C-alpha cells in the first residue's frame, strides 16, 4: 500500500493491475489514451500483455477471447469507440464473459468536443446494445474512487460472469487526487468459479444451484463452447421459447438480483435532509459543493453520489431517500438518469437539473436552479 497523487485515468490503470489484469486491448482515443500508455509500460513488467488493435471492435473481441483463455481483460474507450463495441458487448452478455470496459465519457454526440466532459452516455453504457439486458455500470467521481471501483468492476465481472462498464468522464480522467494505491495481493480479488466436474460432465452454461455457471477456459480440456446463439446448458443452439425464456431470465436475474450487493453511494449532510441533490460521476463534485452552499443558506440539503448506476437498486434508493421532500437529479446532459429515478421515486417530487457544461457544472449554477424549485 502506498499513497500516490495521480489522475483518474492513472488510478484506473493502477486499479486494474491490483485486480489482476493480464490482457489489455485498445485503440487510442481521447481521453483514454493515457490508461493505455500507462498499461503499455507497466503491465508487461508483471507478465501481462498490452496490444493495440486495428479498431475498437477488434479490441473488445480480443478482450473477450482473452477472457475465455482465463486472463482478466480490459479495454478502455469513449463514445465513438463504445458505439463500435456494443455488438460485442452483447456477445459478452450472452456468452457470460467477464470483461471490463472503461468508458470515459466525453462531449458528444459524434466527435463533439473530444477533450471535454459530459455525461451524455450514461444510458448507452447499459442500454446501448441489443438484447435488452443490463450490465453493471459503476461510476467513480474521484481518482480514489476510480481506483477502488476498477477493482470492484473486475470482481463483479468475475463473480457474475458479465461485462462491467466503469463509467468515467473526461473531467475525472484528468483530475489529480490523493490515491491510496494497493498492490496485487493487498486488495480482495474475486476469481470466476471453475468447474468442479470432469470435462465429460461439464456443461458450460449450467448454473447448478445458483445463477452463474462455473467457467472453464480454452486449453483446459473441457471442450468449452462459446455460443452467441441462444443456447441450452450445453451451449447448443436451441431456437425454442422455453430455452430462450430460461436463458433470458437467468441472465437478467443474475444481474438484477445482485443489485443490493452492488449498490454503492456516498452521502453528505444527510441529517434532516429534505432537499436531496442526487448525482453521479464528476457532476457529483459540483453537487456536493452545491449542497454545502444550500446548507449554509439555511436549506436542509444533502448530497448523494451514486457509484452504482446499474442495476438500479430501487428499494435501496427508496429507503435512502425516504422522507426527503424534493429530490433533484443533477447531471451534465439533458436529464437522462433522472428518468430512471423518476420511476423509482414515485412518492417524492423528483426534479431534473440538467446542466450542460464542457467542464464541471458550477456549484453556484446548481444552487440557483435548485432554488427556483424551493
Amino acid at each position, binding site marked *: 500500500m502506498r499513497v500516490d497523487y495521480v489522475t483518474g485515468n492513472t488510478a484506473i490503470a493502477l486499479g486494474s493491475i491490483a485486480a489482476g489484469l493480464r490482457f489489455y486491448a485498445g485503440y487510442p482515443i481521447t481521453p483514454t489514451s493515457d490508461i493505455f500508455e500507462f498499461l503499455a509500460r507497466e503491465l508487461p513488467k508483471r507478465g501481462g500483455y498490452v496490444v493495440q488493435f486495428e479498431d475498437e471492435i477488434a479490441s473488445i473481441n480480443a478482450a473477450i477471447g482473452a477472457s475465455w483463455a482465463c486472463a482478466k481483460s480490459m479495454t478502455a474507450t469513449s463514445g465513438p469507440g463504445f458505439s463500435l463495441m456494443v455488438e460485442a458487448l452483447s456477445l459478452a452478455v450472452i456468452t457470460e464473459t467477464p470483461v471490463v470496459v472503461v468508458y470515459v465519457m466525453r462531449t458528444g454526440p459524434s466527435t463533439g468536443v473530444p477533450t471535454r466532459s459530459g455525461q451524455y452516455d450514461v444510458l448507452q453504457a447499459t442500454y446501448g446494445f441489443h438484447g435488452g439486458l443490463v450490465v453493471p455500470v459503476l461510476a467513480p467521481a474521484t481518482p480514489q474512487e476510480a481506483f477502488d471501483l476498477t477493482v470492484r468492476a473486475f470482481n463483479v465481472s468475475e463473480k457474475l460472469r458479465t461485462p462491467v462498464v466503469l463509467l468515467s468522464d473526461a473531467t475525472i480522467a484528468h483530475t489529480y487526487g490523493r490515491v491510496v494505491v494497493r498492490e496485487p495481493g493487498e486488495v480482495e480479488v474475486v476469481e470466476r468459479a471453475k468447474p468442479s466436474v470432469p470435462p465429460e460432465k461439464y456443461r458450460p452454461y449450467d448454473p447448478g444451484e445458483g445463477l452463474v455457471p462455473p467457467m472453464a477456459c480454452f*486449453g483446459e480440456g473441457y471442450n468449452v463452447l462459446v455460443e452467441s446463439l441462444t443456447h441450452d446448458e450445453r451451449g447448443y443452439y436451441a431456437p425454442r421459447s422455453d430455452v430462450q425464456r430460461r436463458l433470458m431470465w437467468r441472465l437478467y436475474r443474475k444481474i438484477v438480483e445482485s443489485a443490493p450487493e452492488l449498490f454503492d453511494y456516498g452521502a453528505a449532510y444527510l441529517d434532516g435532509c429534505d432537499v436531496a441533490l442526487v448525482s453521479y460521476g464528476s457532476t457529483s463534485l459540483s453537487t456536493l459543493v452545491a449542497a454545502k452552499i444550500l446548507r449554509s443558506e439555511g436549506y436542509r440539503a444533502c448530497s448523494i453520489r451514486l457509484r452504482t448506476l446499474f442495476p438500479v437498486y430501487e428499494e435501496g434508493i427508496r429507503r435512502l431517500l425516504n422522507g426527503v421532500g424534493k429530490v433533484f437529479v443533477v447531471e451534465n446532459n439533458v436529464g437522462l438518469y433522472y428518468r430512471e429515478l423518476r420511476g423509482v421515486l414515485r412518492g417524492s417530487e423528483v426534479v431534473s437539473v440538467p446542466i450542460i457544461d464542457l467542464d464541471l457544472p458550477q456549484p453556484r449554477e446548481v444552487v440557483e436552479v435548485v432554488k427556483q424549485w424551493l
Partner: protein
Amino acid sequence: MAVAHPLDRYLRTDRLPTMWCPGCGLGILLGCILRALDRRIREGSLRRENVGFAGGIGCSARMTLYPYFDSAHVIHGRAIPFALGVKIVKPEMKMIVVGGDGDIAAIGGNHILHAIRRNADLVVIMANNMIYGMTGGQQAPTTPRGLYTTTTPYGNPEREINIVKLAAALGANYVARGSVTHTPLLEQMIYKALGKRGLAFVEVLSTCPELFGRHIGFRSPVDLYSELRKRVVVKTRPSVEESDYSWERGFVIGEFVDRDEPGFIEVLQEYTSRARGGAG
C-alpha cells in the same frame, strides 16, 4: 454408442446431422479439417486440448458447432480478434478460424488485413462459396463479376477480391487456395497450415447449391460441384501472379506462399520480456 466413423471422436456427434443443406460443400471441408487434425494429433505434433476453433456468423462459421474441441461461435466478422485474444494469453493454443467469404473478407476485412500484417499465429480457413449463404444468396466480395445474386439481379457489377494476393502481399507465412472438389490436396494444405507459425491462410472454394447454384442455373448439388471442378485449375507451386480467380479463366488452386518468418506471438513475447529485463 457405436463408433460409426473414425472421425466421430472429433465430433459432437449428438449435434449431427449438421444444419447444412444436402449437397453443401462445407461438410467436405469439415472432413478435411478433421482428417488433417487427426494426422497432427496422432503424430504428436498437436495436442488435442490445445486446439481451438473460432468462427463468426454464416453457414461456414457454423462449422465451429461440430468439432469436439474448445470452440467459439462469436459474431459476424470478429472471430479473428477473438482467436487472437486467446492466442496471445495462451500461446500454446492452435487457433483455427473458420468463416465464410463475407465473414472474413467483407465485414471482417479489417481484421484479416491486420492479422496478416502482424503475421498473427492463426490458421485462417476462408470458405468461399462466392455468395452469402446464411442470409440467402446475396453478393459477396468474392462473387465473380457478372454473376447473378439476390442483391445483384442484373448481374454483379463489382470486381471480385483475390484474397490470395492480399494475403501474400501483406506477408502471411502460408497462403494456399484449395477446393472442396480436390480433397486430398485440401487436406494436405490444412495439415501444412496447422504446422506453421505465423499466419496460415487457406482459401477454400466451396459449393452452395442451395443459393449460388440455383441462381446461376446449376440446380443440383452434383451439377454445381462438377461445374466448379471444371473451372478449377490445379498448379504445383504456382506463383502469386498465377493465382487467377476468375469464372471465365478459372480458379487456380495450389500453395502460393510458404515461408517461415517469426510469428506475432513470438515477437510479442520477446518484446514483452524486455519489460521484465529479459532479452533485448
